[in-house]
């Protein structure tokens, strides 16, 4: 009894002491160093506003924000995380080669306790939580602890030109067959339906994935990307998708000479009306909205085999906010991340034309605009756990292998069978080396 009483007293004292500890911590002058990816004008403004409001709400705290380009961030993050005076909060690229390497080297803090405290997990669909998760030793991707929280969303789908759609009498397809029929209609009218440029290699990954997603399911894709259950790439579904892609090339669905056109040129040509559609990511929305008015272009997801099926679309998020393992301000850093995931942040991002990863209040979005289409598509994907992976994350070498092989496939240097075998060889080599 006496012991219990003493225990309660100690606990009570401890609890009473807690707020004073945090309060006194906040009163000291603290500088929180943040590295983020919001280097372009509009993004930078949003991030600055949020950081400022954070400072106002936390007297004594100074946020030292450094905005970096993707290349710069990728090149410097590793060494910065290893240093004792590196950034407290930093946006990290998901996947094995960056986040995985840092987790393995013990450079990132496990965010699971904070995620529970702040309810971050409720804002993200399970697929997105998985791709920011690793086991503590960094060995297994897709499960275990949470190491990053991404603020913004992106997804791949079909941008379309509303004027050309009206002229040609096209309607938005609801099944994959309808989509192919639509492509045929455009070809019959003497135009290549899909504006495409694959000189840079990576746009082909998205095109292939959008077809592939019509044939595969979530379990397979998760297993494949996270290296589980001994799945491989040499499957009938992947082969079918490769055959379909070649078939699309033969039928003239893509821009002539697409193999020699760079990505930036290709979307410029799409904006100029070279063709009615382009399969690419939502990251173009800002540029396209600037070139036309808000409703010049629209967006829809590549439809499923049967109407209403939860077909995955390649998608993802911006780089994820993580915390340096050796940071002395971890709690404050977590508070900052929560600030970036707040409703206020979502509101500012929407106003600036970006899609927040968390569900967006419908009243903020105008229907019938490109941005409205994008937010609706994202909300649907997030709600149905249908955000598909970038398959090039599967192994550290997969990106290089698949860009080269897809070009070979589309130029008919290799057959669809050789294509899946080549990628499977890359994948098996990685599994064996794990």
């Amino acid at each position, binding site marked *: 009894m006496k012991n219990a009483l003493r225990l309660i007293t100690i606990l009570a004292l401890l609890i009473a002491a807690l707020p004073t500890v945090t309060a006194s911590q906040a009163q000291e002058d603290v500088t929180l160093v943040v590295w983020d990816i919001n280097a372009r004008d509009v993004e930078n403004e949003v991030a600055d506003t949020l950081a400022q409001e954070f400072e106002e709400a936390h007297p004594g705290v100074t946020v030292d924000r450094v905005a970096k380009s993707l290349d710069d961030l990728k*090149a410097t993050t*590793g*060494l910065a995380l*290893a240093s004792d005076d590196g950034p407290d909060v930093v946006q990290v690229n998901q996947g094995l*080669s960056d986040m995985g*390497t*840092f987790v*393995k*080297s013990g*450079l990132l803090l496990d965010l699971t306790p904070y995620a529970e405290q702040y309810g971050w997990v409720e804002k993200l669909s399970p697929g997105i939580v998985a791709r920011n998760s690793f086991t503590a030793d960094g060995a297994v991707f897709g499960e275990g602890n949470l190491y990053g929280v991404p603020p913004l969303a992106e997804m791949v789908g079909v941008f379309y030109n509303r004027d050309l759609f009206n002229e040609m009498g096209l309607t938005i397809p609801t099944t994959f067959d309808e989509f192919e029929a639509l492509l045929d209609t455009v070809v019959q009218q003497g135009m290549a339906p899909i504006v495409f440029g*694959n*000189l*840079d*290699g990576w746009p082909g990954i998205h095109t292939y994935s959008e077809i592939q997603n019509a044939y595969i399911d979530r379990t397979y894709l998760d297993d494949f990307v996270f290296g589980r259950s001994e799945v491989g790439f040499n499957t009938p579904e992947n082969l079918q998708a490769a055959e379909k892609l070649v078939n699309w090339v033969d039928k003239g669905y893509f*821009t*002539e*000479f*697409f*193999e*020699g*056109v*760079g990505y930036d*040129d290709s979307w410029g*040509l799409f904006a100029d009306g*070279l063709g009615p559609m382009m399969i690419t990511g939502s990251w173009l929305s800002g540029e396209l909205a600037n070139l036309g008015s808000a409703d010049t272009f629209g967006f829809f997801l590549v439809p499923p085999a049967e109407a209403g099926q939860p077909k995955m679309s390649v998608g993802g998020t911006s780089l994820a906010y993580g915390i340096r393992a050796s940071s002395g301000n971890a709690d404050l850093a977590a508070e900052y991340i929560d600030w970036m995931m707040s409703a206020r942040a979502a509101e500012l991002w929407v106003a600036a034309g970006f899609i927040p990863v968390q569900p967006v209040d419908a009243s903020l979005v105008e229907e019938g605009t490109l941005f409205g289409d994008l937010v609706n598509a994202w909300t649907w994907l997030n709600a149905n756990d249908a955000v598909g992976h970038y398959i090039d994350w599967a192994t*550290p*070498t997969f*990106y*290089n292998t698949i*860009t*080269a*092989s897809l*070009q*070979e496939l589309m*130029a008919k*240097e290799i057959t669809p069978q050789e294509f899946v075998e080549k990628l499977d060889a890359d994948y098996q080599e990685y599994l064996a080396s794990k």
Partner: protein
Amino acid sequence: MMRRYFKGYEPGYHFWTAYLFILPALAIYGVFVFWPILQTVRYSLFEWNGLDTPQFVGFSNYVDLYHDEIFRVAFQNNLTFILFYTAFPIIIALFLTAILTRRKIFGLTFFRAGLFLPYVMSMVVVGVVWRWIYNPIFGPLNEFLEMVGLESWKRAWLGDFDLALPAVGVIGTWVQYGFCLVLFIAGVQRIEEELYDAAKIDGANEFRQLWHITLPALRSEIAVAMVTTLISALRVFDLVYVTTRGLPGNKTMVVSFHLYQNAFEQHKVGYAASIAVTLTSVILFISFLIIQWRKRVEENV
């Protein structure tokens, strides 16, 4: 000889003073060149992702390199680049030298400056401009072909599996010949005019003059041009980085870009170091051969 040189001086004294003068430069050279080279050689014996503790693996990186198919393709492409970086520019530059120095041309300085221009331009600018020229949809090359009725010759150029490598190579030729040209023009100005006069009296035509007078006299310039352009061909990176990134397939992959991908995209620093060491050794070896060849030719004169 040496003894006489030092006679009358305290032996050794000047020796050390000389070193003192070299020291600052040597220190900088050591810290920024020698030390990194030694480090690279050392890293090539480790498996290392750039962050963790490196694992010593002996020569296994080199064994992997031997079996690396992309490395082999890349190396072959580098050898092909020698054609575009060394052979073509030297031939073109010799031809232009013959024209520009043996005839009085109005506005010669202007032409010389213009022809040298590609070499002075930043490789990134060159790459971006040529990417535009080669653009199959709105680039001037295909537009020109269409204009003159050669529509069937239109290609995807940089994206074409057969043409991508020569297409990038041509850019290299365009950049390198200006350098060779300036070297050769400077060399020709040293040749005494009497030699040509004598040849003319003997009835030698322009081609024979080029073959028997200009060419032998330019031996050292040609050797210099060969060494520099060969090194450029073997270590080409920027041009490929800007135009094709080794694509399509691996048709334009070169050794230094393969190195870059391993080091900075796949975090295989040890393996990338073994590529660097191999490439450096090859370049040193080939440079050595050319210098030997030049010495032998000069001794024969």
